[in-house]
């Protein structure tokens, strides 16, 4: 499929630690098309960041091991590439921005220089030209170019995140992975940053993978959504499919848990009882079963992803369709 920029197939990642083997990502597959934004939704610890780090080749390899799978980017399997190749990709073809802007910038270097650094890493340009380009990028994210020579501690959280976005986009990557980019920011700043990201997406046509646990952000920014639970994709489809025809009980539970959602009756919040299974000892059968209100004996088997229409996939033996409970 030539309209696909990134294709993850059967990716599994484990962490070997003292207490045992943590199965962080289990047989995950998804595609990202050119120009589209895919949202990865899930609780903390579901494995979303691990997937992103695996794509970037930034997994801490002594504890982490990719036990199976392929990550195909522009036709090449990234998992088989050496470090030198990956370094040429990072910041250049695929960029990643992380959660906490307060600590993501080097405190002892000028902000502008940190952008110039990535430009010079991937382009043969002079220092002056790189500076020029970096200043343009600063303006693009709404920071006056004369703030190039300032240290990060002079910037607020929102501004730092802008700088980080600038750094990520400076070399015009084809794919941007954003890991909880607005979680650490105030609500009003969140809105600003999201708006900036939308504008840039339109302007540059970058494909995005947006990782978050905030459904509101997903609704605003994404074309397609994948719901991750205990290292697996439990539901994946277009925004409309997942939001309007929610199929998996877990996804439904996420929506129900939102304060102010109609289905919760407006008074008490409806949390999902229990907690995610211990990733060291994951059950073979449906991993959500222990918390699912619709659980039956059929759930004791290993459940695969099934297509319930138009590319809307769900991992459940009795999916909800059309909002029925």
């Amino acid at each position, binding site marked *: 499929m030539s309209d696909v920029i990134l294709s993850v197939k059967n990716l599994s990642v484990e962490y070997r630690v003292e*207490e045992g083997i943590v199965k962080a990502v289990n047989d995950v597959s998804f595609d990202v098309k050119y120009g589209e934004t895919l949202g990865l939704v899930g609780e903390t610890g579901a494995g979303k960041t691990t997937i992103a780090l695996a794509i970037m080749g930034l997994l801490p390899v002594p504890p982490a091991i990719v036990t199976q799978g392929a990550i195909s980017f522009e036709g090449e399997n990234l998992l088989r590439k050496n470090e030198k190749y990956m370094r040429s990709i990072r910041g250049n073809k695929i960029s990643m921005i992380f959660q906490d802007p307060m600590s993501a910038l080097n405190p002892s270097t000028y902000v502008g220089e940190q952008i110039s650094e990535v430009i010079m890493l991937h382009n043969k340009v002079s220092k002056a030209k790189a500076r020029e380009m970096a200043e343009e990028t600063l303006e693009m994210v709404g920071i006056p170019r004369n703030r190039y020579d300032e240290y990060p501690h002079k910037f607020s959280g929102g501004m730092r995140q802008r700088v980080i976005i600038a750094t990520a986009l400076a070399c015009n990557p084809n794919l941007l992975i954003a890991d909880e980019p607005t979680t650490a920011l105030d609500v009003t700043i969140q809105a600003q940053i999201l708006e900036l990201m939308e504008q840039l997406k339109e302007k540059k046509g970058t494909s995005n993978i947006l990782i978050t646990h905030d459904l509101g952000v997903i609704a605003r920014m994404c074309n397609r959504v994948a719901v991750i639970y205990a290292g697996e994709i439990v539901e994946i489809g277009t925004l409309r499919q997942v939001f309007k025809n929610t199929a998996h009980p877990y996804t439904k539970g996420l929506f129900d848990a939102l304060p102010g959602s109609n289905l919760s009756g407006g008074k008490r919040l409806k949390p999902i009882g229990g907690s995610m299974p*211990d990733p*060291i*000892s994951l059950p073979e059968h449906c991993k959500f079963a222990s918390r699912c209100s619709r659980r039956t004996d059929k759930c004791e088997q290993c459940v695969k992803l099934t297509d319930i229409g138009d590319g809307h996939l769900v991992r459940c033996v009795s999916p909800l369709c059309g909002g029925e409970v």
Partner: protein
Amino acid sequence: MSSSVSRSGRKSHFELFLRRFCRNKLAVAGFIFIVFIILVAIFAPYIAPYGYDDQNVSIRLQEPSSEHWFGTDDLGRDVFSRMIYGARVSLSVGISTTTISMFVALIIGMISGYYGGRTDNIIMRIIDIFLAIPSILLSIAIAATLGGGIASMLIAISIGAVPGVSRLIRAQVMAECHKEYVEAARVTRASDFRIMFKYIFPNISSVFIVTFTMGVAGGILNASMLSFIGLGAQPPTPEWGAMLSNGREYIRDYPYLVTYPGLMISLTVFAINMFGDGLRDALDPKLKGR
């Protein structure tokens, strides 16, 4: 599934600590060595084949042999026995100086860190003055003033250690004071003294314990240096540093007089350091878990 389901808080904390500690083989080895040395020190009269001052000039300066495992020194004394008794001196000096200095430093650090403001400023100025002189130099100066001998060595080393440790404890106390449980305690009108010792101290106790352990090692090193110079243990007291000083003249032909005592100091300090490091690593994650 992890088997340590917490029963009562205190018990499982200690078990966790013990398990983490035991994973560190060097630390365990250090601990065993320390116990060994302590036992040697306590039972010295029973273990040592000779007295520490049994002079016999006719057998002076003999190489290590089956009768004298580490040879004899310039006065015919058995080096092995002297080293065993030396353990007593070194350990007791190390432990006592550290106890005194930690106690004093704790009080200073607590008061300075807890009350802050002018009190802190004044105290820290004074401490800074003392810190301007390296602790060993200070100890040397004090010991020289007091005339040498074990008592003055004790005082000198204790005083020398106080400024540095005070600063450390003050930093820890100040860090704790910013935490909310201290504010909560203040709100309940607990007395300052009570807050300091019932609330703050337990939370800095692991730093305290580790610093104490390392302090003993430092005390032993400083004692050996002072004795080497001639300001510490006086003859015939068998202190390892003093033995080194004694053997120095004969180093060309009888190197064992220098090598063995030095090795002993190094091994002991090494063991204590390993143990202290292991303690720190085992206690630290626990602190983080809070």
